[in-house]
């Protein structure tokens, strides 16, 4: 009898630990995320995606902006996965590179703007929460994640553009 109750206790303790983690996330993460997301979503609705699209069309010519500002605008205003539709503004030969840049930014943006990809928040939040549990502030990390994200997508865009051009050199 004692054995059975011990097993049962051990079994329950697995989920008590899980419950504590869940409780911490729901009370610690969700309230802030909800308010921030509501605010940013309202701004997006007030600005309107059409205005952003008009602007996006104008900046695709410049390689640096094409793989930094354009994906940033797309991910911020349209979120994952609609941000890839901005690919239609760039030339055919740049589309794979644009996609690579845009998709690589859907996680770095969540440190500062979780609305853009709330469904995949835990790439950032998993690590950030661990640091917070240790009593560290993650604001600086979020900013650096964002900046390094921009640098990385620029490099990714430029390199993928070259590789794609190399692969299709016989066609052109």
């Amino acid at each position, binding site marked *: 009898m004692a054995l059975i109750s011990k097993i049962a206790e051990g079994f329950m303790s697995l989920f008590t630990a899980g419950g504590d983690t869940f409780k911490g996330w729901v009370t610690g993460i969700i309230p802030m995320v909800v308010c921030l997301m509501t605010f940013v979503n309202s701004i997006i609705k007030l600005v309107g995606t059409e205005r952003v699209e008009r602007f996006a069309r104008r900046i695709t010519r410049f390689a640096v902006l094409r793989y930094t500002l354009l994906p940033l605008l797309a991910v911020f205003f349209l979120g994952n996965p609609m941000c890839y539709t901005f690919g239609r503004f760039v030339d055919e030969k740049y589309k794979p590179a644009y996609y690579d840049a845009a*998709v690589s930014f859907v996680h770095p943006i969540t440190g500062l703007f979780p609305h853009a990809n709330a469904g995949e928040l835990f*790439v950032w939040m998993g690590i950030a929460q661990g640091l917070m549990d240790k009593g560290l502030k993650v604001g600086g990390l979020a900013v650096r994640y964002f900046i390094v994200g921009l640098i990385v997508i620029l490099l990714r865009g430029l390199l993928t553009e070259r590789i794609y051009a190399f692969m299709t050199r016989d066609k052109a």
Partner: protein
Amino acid sequence: MYNTIKINAGDGGWGGPLTVTPTEKCHTVLSVTGGGIHPIAQKLADLSGGVAVDGWKTNLPDDEIMIAVVDCGGTARCGVYPKKGIFTVNLMPVGQSGPLAQFITPDIYVSSVREQDIEVLGEAADVPETKAAPAAEEAAPAAEEAAAAAAPAQKQGFVVRLGKGVGSVVGKFFQAGRETIEMVIKNVLPFMAFTSTLLGIISASGLGNLIAKTIAPLCGTLPGMLVICLICSLPFLSPILGPGAVIAQVVGTLLGAQFATGAIPAKYALPALFAIDGQVGADFVPVGLSLGEAEPETIEYGVPAVLFSRIVTGPLAVIIAFIFSIGMF
């Protein structure tokens, strides 16, 4: 003279497109938009050949209403007309919401409609007295009428206009809140439930300590991070690891637990964020490219281009992140 019209969802809208054909009995566009006939309602009536009436002043039997035009922020009106089986055009960008949400379906409801979202498809087939007038000719005077109809709308009092302006902004905020909560319930909470259960089992069963003593020290170095990232970026593995970023999220959370215990030093947080994400979107390249309206040939060469690029840029990202974390924590 009736025309079949097509109504598409506008910017941020939901539902539709609706294809509506007026008949002798049912050709009225009911404008239920806070007084007066809204220009969109007038436009719908003009293009289809029906009549627009002010829903606040006139009441009609349901079977004579062809389309109801509402500017509902998402509670009552947007659901009432679909429930009655009447085509509903909402001027606000509202999807399925409110207590009558289950009646709001894309085949009867369309939202965020503007003038340019309405098209004439052609003459209605069941009208006998046709003079074979092309739809384009029909549309020209209709546009003038719409302009004429818009003029009285502008004469509305200052208070009404102010009220509508405030209502529109508040409506957008409200809708933003609704979308946020929906996102949290549909995507964030289920992931939290799944991951916290997994984490609970790992930590309470002692598996966590095992990871902390064996794998974590290996991961908690720059070469370790580079190896993880390289594995994630391999072109034959990355498309498998990619979907929904589930693996990146679970690994992120597991690493987070190691950061919390101090098994991995906090200064490795930034490189870790990039190390676990070398495969991001690798599963989604063809879909993402077709969303960007790429040609099939672009997709054919684009997929390997992206995958090969990652072998280099994945580890490179970890190194850049490592450099950028100098001076933090």
